[in-house]
């Protein structure tokens, strides 16, 4: 693959005495889905929040598109084109799909809204993602199913010509059919050339859509491998023990938080 769109080198993060991330190396390629897996407390969410600029990193380098960047707050991340879809989605129930997608970044002049422009742009984005599940872009979010909400949240992240989209457990609360829709959508994001990071606990999802798996173990990057090179079992071992055969941390027993 060519140069990665987002690259982290030797990133450390501590909360007081707790060293949460140890020398993390992590790369995201454009046009690929990178699954970020790890047990509870392994540091997945912290890593995502560091990338999103919510937590400042203590040390290490972040390179975006080959250039070293300093992400200092969520707005910096948004400016680079890094969008995060959090687990709780952050949609306002009483607003419709278009209104939610443009929330806080409404189009229009002099404080007036340009509804026509926004509606067309929203529909275009949903069309480009081949979303067929939402009946009308003027449906209130309150009337949407969990999968549809997830779709709207993801489309909202894509609307801003983003380059990297981080998805925090997008299928955790969904049924079978809805999981299907969301996974298809995740795949299409990558096909459009975005770098996609998928946090998930579900190995089926990971093996279905991810090109690569990055496995965190107690705050360390245990392995970053192509999904075709590993088996289910190996990934589970990496998650639970930090090591599987030749892969993983040399001496996981010595790893401490």
């Amino acid at each position: 693959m060519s140069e990665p769109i987002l690259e982290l080198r030797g990133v450390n993060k501590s909360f007081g005495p707790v060293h949460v991330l140890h020398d993390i190396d992590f790369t995201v390629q454009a046009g690929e889905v990178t699954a970020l897996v790890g047990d509870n407390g392994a540091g997945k969410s912290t890593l995502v929040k560091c990338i999103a600029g919510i937590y400042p990193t203590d040390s290490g380098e972040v390179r975006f598109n080959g250039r070293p960047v300093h992400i200092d707050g969520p707005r910096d991340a948004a400016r680079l084109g890094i969008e995060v879809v959090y687990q709780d989605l952050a949609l306002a129930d009483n607003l419709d799909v278009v209104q939610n997608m443009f929330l806080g970044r409404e189009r229009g002049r002099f404080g007036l809204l340009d509804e026509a422009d926004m509606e067309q742009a929203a529909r275009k984005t949903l069309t480009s993602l081949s979303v067929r599940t939402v009946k009308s872009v003027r449906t209130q979010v309150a009337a949407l199913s969990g999968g549809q909400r997830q779709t709207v949240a993801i489309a909202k992240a894509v609307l801003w010509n983003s380059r990297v989209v981080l998805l925090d457990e997008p299928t955790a609360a969904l049924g079978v059919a809805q999981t299907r829709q969301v996974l298809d959508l995740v795949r299409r994001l990558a096909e459009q050339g975005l770098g996609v990071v998928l946090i998930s606990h579900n190995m089926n999802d990971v093996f279905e859509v991810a090109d690569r798996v990055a496995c965190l173990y107690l705050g360390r990057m245990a392995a970053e491998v192509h999904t075709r090179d590993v088996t289910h079992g190996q990934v589970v071992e990496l998650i639970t023990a930090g090591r599987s055969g030749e892969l993983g941390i040399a001496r996981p027993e010595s790893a401490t938080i």
Partner: protein
Amino acid sequence: MTNTTSEAAPQDSPPPAAISDFGIDTTSRSTGEALRDYGARLRGGELGPLPALLGMVALLIVFGSIADTFLTLGNIANLLAQGASITIIAMGLVFVLLLGEIDLSAGTASGVTAAVMALHLVRGGNLLGGMGDVVFSVFCGLLVLAVLLAAVMRIWAGAALSAVALLIALVGVPPNPWVEMLLAVCVGTAIGCVTGFLVAKVGIPSFVVTLALFLAWGGVVLQLVGQGGTLGLNDQVLFEVANGNLTTAGSWILFVVAVGGYAAVVLGRHFSRLRKGLVASPTPLVLIKVGAVVVLAAVGTCLLTLDRSRSDIVVISGVPYVVPIVLVLLVIGTFVLERTRYGRHVYAVGGNQEAARRAGIDVARVRMSVFVICSSAAAIGAIVYSSKVGSVDPNAGGDNTLLLSVGAAVIGGTSLFGGRGRLRDAVIGAAVLATINNGMGLLKQPAAVVYIVTGLVLLLAAGVDALSRRRAAVAPR
């Protein structure tokens, strides 16, 4: 790419036009579909102002049949003037309710603005003389504080209006009805700045802040007016606000401007949406809606331009001034809520505060601003009710002014839980309450019965709100 995508591949042929793939069949619905959708929404618990409208019709029928004088022209015009102040205060409260907050102080705050206005008029522009040194210094101090707080939160309109109030107070502008009204509104704005800051920035729950201020402002009114005293508003213009009428020609000009403007905006918007292929209601429905408004407004204007005086000597006719006042406020407020970025943010903060915060909306500023709007609207309401009575007494804005206003907003369909509601709800709800009050009065019912019935209606409205919420939560998705 991995082979997992192969199954999705056949669907990925690029759509011929941007819109064709996604929901072309949903952008324009037939009338039947739209009605079915509306039915589904009603069953799903989104009632909107429907219960209030039905209640209004029921009330008109009941009172019309048992109280002879209810449906006379004189009484209808009187009803409009009686309901106007509650309507205006309720419209301001809608902004606060949209955030799921409450402003219990709106009533007595309006009383303060009325008292300041009356004092300024009675004392010939000398507020210092009217209030006494200590009270005047505290008053000016509060105005300065309001300017500062608004400036800190970058609510420039609030800061500017509070500064105007300070200027009028300090300079001692000679009394003039227009200056008095401006002063009242500006004092209202200043009060809102203080309330809003306490809620949004200091973080005291709005219920507690405004409960405390409800008591405090009640005391301030008493202090300004004086125990047992009243301040008369001996001014023709101020008297006309709630008691005057447009001329017949003026009434029809109002009809043409208001209805013509409404039709132009609604139809223009509708056809522009159709042209651009956006989601739009069916054309027949839009035409019916506009037609109904035109007919109702024409009938109303026609009736109100007839002579409604009970004696043969005097002629009373024309649309009361309060109608255009309420209409203008309704149009401005609706425009702000539906068409501006600010209005969108109000709904967003009311719907999901966390989502709004993450979307980069300054939540504290929005929360403070609604209190500024509410108190300013309350001041306009104060001008109207003071004009109706012709004086300001120590009880101005007390009693049940506030409760009726909140009740009006809620009966109209504004949710107390935030996020749902429109300004027209306040107008419809206030019409219901004013009708109950007026009709019961005509039936010579004692105050006790009026209060009890009003209370029960409010309870009913709040119950409908809560039940429809529950319904909406369990409605199939």
